[in-house]
């Protein structure tokens, strides 16, 4: 494909230089995060902010993992994501199958509902959800406030609408002929969905689940609201917030915790990167 006219101008060295400078500025906070996590405390607390260190050390990481118990919070964050993401994917997969491969009354209405549900500002729902999970907790403590179960449940709900919306494309892409062949071979509807559709859509599920993972992993508001007193059930963002102390912030610890929290997202982002662009390009072509 040849480049369009707006992009046709011969690339100039100047543009490349500007791009590299901009990339440097954009990447700088991340570099600074990593650098500060590796700097010895004395260097970090000294008067001058050198953009490099000659004595990299893992002290800050050791400190947050042993003293501050970050390992525990990391595990909590992983646990919440490990339940919420597959949970949301199961709900979304079956809903996407129903909404794309069948025609029934209310189908369009439901699709619009999914789209609207995706737009609901979940930040506004903290108050009712707080009370809802307070009641849940009275019956099943594990699903109530101060427990990870509450976070798992809300994130299943929060990730599902977007996942349905994304999965429609993947489910619809499986050709009708495949379904027809399966049926001629005697496969029932559920059998077709389980043994043929599911494996075919699996790559799509992986891509979509990464989005669910990111929003669950990054969430700060709900753990902040739900985990009130149970220190041991906090997740990573809350742990990092707790490192902030009036006057004497342990910046080394904050940056080390931030690196631990940022790395998984960064890795996953590289995986979905292709979907980010191709999905959008598809949308642009309409």
């Amino acid at each position, binding site marked *: 494909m040849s480049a369009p*006219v*707006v992009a046709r101008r011969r*690339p100039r060295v100047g*543009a490349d230089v*500007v*791009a*590299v400078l*901009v990339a440097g500025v954009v*990447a700088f*906070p*991340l570099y*600074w995060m990593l650098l500060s996590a590796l700097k010895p405390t004395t260097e970090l607390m000294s*008067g001058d902010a050198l953009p490099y260190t000659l004595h990299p050390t893992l002290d800050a990481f050791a400190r947050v993992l042993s003293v501050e118990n970050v390992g525990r919070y990391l595990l909590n964050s992983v646990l919440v994501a490990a339940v919420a993401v597959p949970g949301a994917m199961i*709900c*979304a997969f*079956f*809903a996407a199958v*129903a909404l794309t*491969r069948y025609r029934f009354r209310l189908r369009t209405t*439901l699709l*619009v509902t999914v789209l609207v549900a995706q*737009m*609901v500002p*979940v930040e*506004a729902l*903290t108050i*009712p959800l*707080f*009370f*809802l999970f307070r009641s849940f907790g009275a019956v099943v403590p594990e699903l109530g406030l101060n427990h990870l179960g509450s976070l798992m449940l809300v994130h*299943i*709900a929060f990730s599902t609408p977007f996942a*349905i919306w*994304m999965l429609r494309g993947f489910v*619809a*892409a499986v050709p*009708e002929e495949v379904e*027809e062949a399966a049926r001629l071979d005697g496969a*029932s509807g559920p059998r077709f969905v389980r043994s043929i559709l599911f494996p075919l859509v699996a790559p799509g599920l992986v891509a979509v689940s990464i989005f669910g993972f*990111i*929003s*669950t*992993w*990054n*969430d*700060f*508001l*709900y753990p*902040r609201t739900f985990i009130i007193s149970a220190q041991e059930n906090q997740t990573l963002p809350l742990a990092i*917030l707790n490192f*902030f102390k009036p006057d004497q912030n342990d910046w080394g610890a*904050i940056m080390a915790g*931030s690196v631990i929290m*940022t790395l998984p*997202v960064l890795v996953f982002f590289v995986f979905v990167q292709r*979907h*980010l662009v191709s999905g*959008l390009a*598809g949308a*642009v072509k309409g």
Partner: protein
Amino acid sequence: MTATHAALPAAGGATLPAAGGAPRPPRPLLSRRGRGTTTWARRWEPRFYLVPAVVVLGGLLAYPLYQLVVVSLYDYRQANVSGSAPLRFIGLQNYARLLGDEAFWTVLGNTVVFAGACVVATLAVGGALALLATRLRPWSRTVLFLASLGAWATPAMTGSAVWLFLFDPTLGFVNQTLTAIGLDGFAGHSWTYDKWSAFALVGAEIVWCSFPFVMVTLYAGIIGVPTEIQEAARLDGASTWRIALSIVAPILRPVLAIVTIQSIIWDFKVFTQIYVMTGGGGIAGQNLVLNVYSYQQAFAASQYGLGSAVGVITTLLLMVVTLAYLRALRRQGEEL
């Protein structure tokens, strides 16, 4: 890009339509063939598949949304929560109180100005870099996109932390550098003390982590403009400028509408960055925006009814924007 929905992230990219273009439902097979025994199953199958999603979304999105409205109509405080005082239905009094409260209007004004400035800055930076990206050699484009991907992927919490550190009064890179080049006034200067300086700092972090979405989307849009039309226009003697204005811009308009509205939605409901970077809403609440205000009313001041009313107002304002978003999607030919 925040929680979520951060979203994409949400997180990431909250409403990117799926890869592979607009899906089209295949014709139902069995109803055409009319095999008696299986039609019943065929009719009930989709409903069965919908059960988990409907239960989860009904219970944890629709019902709380309804409850949000209900709570906003009550005088609901700590005493009512613990059950030592009876619940009192007060109709729209919470709303009346808000609308008559100067503090609420200040918060609303803050939110609109702050979100508006973030949207404009994000679009300007993202748009400019998308244009720049079209004139780059592949290697420098890769460098630019990789750096942007890093910013995009950074969680709101850790992004806020590192930006706070960069702008720390004494130990921050920015103040130390400014002091080193002779601007002694910045020694120990607090960037979060002044209201608008604090907003600007939070805004900078938000632009940093949200411009990549705009850049990537617009870049894909520009690349997607069919070359043939442009060739034809060029043969007809149109100048590059004319082609950009009369052909590329109109084709890009729906994409522009989508990134604009998406940015409005994200920036309007920012929570984490404000909460973390200004310590829960700034000195004397000077940096409160609607979401943080609602949270503080409910969970710090135990005014759950009032907090819910703020939540309802936020939701309504966002719904208006969302309707505009749906129209833009529709115009773009997204099929349901």
